């Protein structure tokens, strides 16, 4: 039986899962700040995909090189976790975020904006019509909850 020292260390077993995690984690912490990285998400999907590929390669090596059972198990576990993480990013980017229902009842074309009454940060009434005379960029968002 060969000694441990003679067998090259299988670094892919940890590099793969770590890279996958970095790819997924950095999408939500870093890429979301940069529209070019956020909208397409290709960089993070590529990093996570590469991580999964390396984890898979490392696991295959662990089996073909006859690594010890714990190493094989850890490799398989790391690959499974990588696929879960990467799969989550893929599902979020390509499926979940398209979950907005189709718009309905939104006027098209050149129509007068409804004059609605809103509240400013101090709770005072704010009429949209008070902005007449200036161009308005009106952004609706879901709020923080």
């Amino acid at each position, binding site marked *: 039986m060969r000694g441990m020292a003679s067998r090259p260390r299988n670094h892919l077993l940890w590099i793969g899962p770590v890279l996958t995690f970095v790819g997924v984690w950095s999408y939500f912490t870093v890429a979301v700040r940069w529209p070019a990285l956020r909208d397409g998400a290709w960089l993070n999907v590529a990093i996570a995909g590469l991580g999964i590929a390396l984890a898979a390669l490392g696991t295959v090596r662990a089996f073909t090189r006859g690594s010890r059972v714990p190493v094989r198990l850890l490799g398989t576990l790391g690959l499974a976790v990588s696929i879960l993480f990467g799969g989550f990013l893929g599902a979020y980017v390509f499926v979940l975020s398209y979950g907005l229902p189709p718009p309905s009842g939104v006027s098209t074309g050149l129509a007068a904006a409804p004059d609605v009454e809103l*509240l400013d940060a101090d709770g005072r009434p704010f009429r949209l019509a008070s902005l007449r005379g200036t161009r308005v960029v009106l952004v609706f968002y879901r709020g923080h909850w």
Partner: protein
Amino acid sequence: MAEFRDAGATVVAVSTDPPERGREVVEALGLEFPVLADPSGAAVAAFGVAHPEGNPIDGGTIARPATFLLDRDGRVVWRDLTENWRVRPRPDEILQRLASIP
């Protein structure tokens, strides 16, 4: 924001959060535009941008992400109702549209 001012445009954000929340958001993010509150959801409904499924937590009215450009006379000249909540119109695109509004 200076670019929007130079384009003669006022930026306002609207959500159904209470006014205090708008203030917190402005302070936390250092925003230079007002975050207005529409707690009743009337404005969201008037613009037709209510999220049909509502707030998944309590079912209350929330807005889908939407951007409207109004001209000086208060007419809607452009709108974007993204189909993907990750992807919203970018400032440079809005500035470009603003430039074409009389």
